[in-house]
């Protein structure tokens, strides 16, 4: 069974880390990552850009808001990783998806770090 791990934390605090502190955390995480990579369990992992780089498409209203999706009534149900040319391109894809599946919103946020991983889908 594949599990997604969604990472939440105090963004302002994480953004306040010095480069050394950030590197230290990433190095410690990497120890865990490498262990999982060896076991063939590590799927794609992402580090997202700060929420200030995000834009949100409210599907039903076809409204683009600056910033992250801030409502708490809806739950995160899944996500896509799509290679887009720019924000306009990303939003046009989001609109296409929204036509196929209305309701809710898509937050579009650039990815800062992408580790492809090699776990096979449906393996377990």
């Amino acid at each position, binding site marked *: 069974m594949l599990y997604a791990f969604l990472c939440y934390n105090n963004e302002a605090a*994480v953004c*306040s880390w010095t480069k050394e502190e950030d590197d230290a955390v990433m*190095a410690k995480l990497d120890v865990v990552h490498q262990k999982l990579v060896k076991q063939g369990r590590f799927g794609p992992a992402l580090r997202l850009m700060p929420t200030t780089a995000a834009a949100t498409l409210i599907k039903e209203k076809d409204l683009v808001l600056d910033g992250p999706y801030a409502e708490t009534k809806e739950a995160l149900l899944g996500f896509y990783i799509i290679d887009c040319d720019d924000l306009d391109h990303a939003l046009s894809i989001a609109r296409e998806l929204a036509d196929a599946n209305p309701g809710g919103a898509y937050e579009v946020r650039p990815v*800062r770090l992408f580790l492809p991983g090699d776990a096979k889908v449906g393996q377990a």
Partner: protein
Amino acid sequence: MTEVDWIGAALTAARPQAVAALLRYFRDLDTAEEAFQEASLRALKTWPQNGPPRDPAAWLIFVGRNVAIDSVRKRSRQEPLPDEALLSDLEDAEAGMAERIDESHYSDDVLRLLFVCGHPELPATQQIALALRIVSGLSVPQIARAFLVSEAAMEQRITRAKRRIAGANVPFEAPGAPERAERLAAVAAMIYLVFNEGYSAGSGEVSARATLCGEAIRLARLLLRLFPAEPEIMGLLALLVLQHARAAARFDANGSIVLLEDQDRTLWDRAKITEGLALIDKAVRHRRRGPYQIQAAIAALHARAARPQDTDWAQIDVLYAALEEVQPSPVVSLNRAVAVSKVRGAEAALRMIEPLSTRLAGYFHFHGLHGALLQELGRNEEARAAFGRAIALANSPAEAAHIRMHLDRLMADGAASKRFLPACRGRTCSRNSSAKAELPLRRNSGPRVSDRYAAVRPRIITPFTAQEDFMATQAKQAAKPATNTASLDQSCPAEGMQTPPEFKGPHPQVKGGPAPYLMVDGAAKAAEFYKRAFGAEEVRRYPLDDRGRTMHVHLYINGGSLMLSDCYPEHGHPWKEPQGFSLHLQVDDVDKWWDRAIKAGAEPRMPVQLMFWGDRYGQLRDPFGIVWSIATTPNK
């Protein structure tokens, strides 16, 4: 290995919000700071035991406020408040506070705090010192190190700034839209000053000053989080991260400046570059161009070039042209001259910069460029003199060393060397060409950034040469208040805006007695309204700036002149509620005038009625807050 100090990071991150809320509560910087300090001490004691609170800022505000009130009560021998150590996460307390410290309150609080620090009345050095002390929470010794002054001097500078602020009487009520915009602009300028203070440091001071760049980015990010839909704030953050992305490549092992063209681009921070590009993408969608966005777009074009020769100079030029429009300044023109040197040669560039010599007489880069151009033309004697002036004006030892290098070369070969100009194609770029990875940048599909910013009208292509530090210093100049006041003939209409009637020809006659001159929020809109409401005729309008503002509109209404201007908070003319006067129209048919005005959207204040003095008279208020009275004297 560095351990993350999570309490320290949480305190740093919460500091702006917490100090800002405490400032609103106590209306005194020192009290707010002390309260925060005390709350932080208690956090260090209780957080490791009880775990981190869910909302550190709310915790610190609550505790800080209680501490300060408590100390007042203790002095007056009253009951102390409950110990916050007993409250694990202040859940209940938070709920009670939620309405008072909601997001919008946070935003205005933080903006006010930043505005207090970046108050236009403070000299730049005091603004930076105050912001670093109060908002970022750097210690006085830390700030003193960054500025290379003694701690005592820095302490004094901060005290002086605080005293000045206390006298400036920054209002504490929630700001209206015009004040908010004014504050945002001042705060953005202050953040840029902080960044540049760090950016213009020499390599020796890099570590002490790198902090300043980091702090500026943190503040810009905070500001954007609070005002997520402001394209200029997106532009500001984009500009800062794009500039900072080059930090590791800007100095060589000896501490000399490395020009943009010679930098090892593999050292550029790609995560920052990608973030900057993403922010520009967001900003562009708003189609409200501004100086920070344009400068960020220029920085982005440099960042997108994997090798110097891949730089899209033509686009950069178009962007500089746009910048010249929205922020005319001799320094921007100097940049264009560098560009001209690249395309049309040193001769043409020299012709361009010579008229700037008086206004830029005290500017390092002017003399540096002047010298380089002269040198290229073989006018070595004059070049030497110009380089000498540049050295005298250098802002850092690295800048001086850089010019001295040219001088040495001049002495050594006496020949026309193009070393100062990055246009030196002869130089090998082996480091750069060995760069293995392409930067993860936007593909060239779709319109380019500059296409979306630049004015549509065609311009002469004069590619800009990338001179490291040019942009930053130029922005530093621009950030100083009132250095770039656009003269009337320089201001240009923003793209897509109509500017009827053309601003030329003889001055229209001023009709009537004292002609009212109104400062309104939206002079162009007001003019349109008065045309509909009072049949106004527009006889003169100065072109709109990029924010759609104009300095002057001249209307004829009912045979007399009425003049309008927008508010320019950055020049000391913020919008103020009109009061204590009304404009009177004595007309033939009050009812006809009244109906037309009401239909146009004016709001009745006093219906038309027969008054004791014999006139039929009514009052209305227009959408710009101006009260008008209209009257007709009946014929018997």
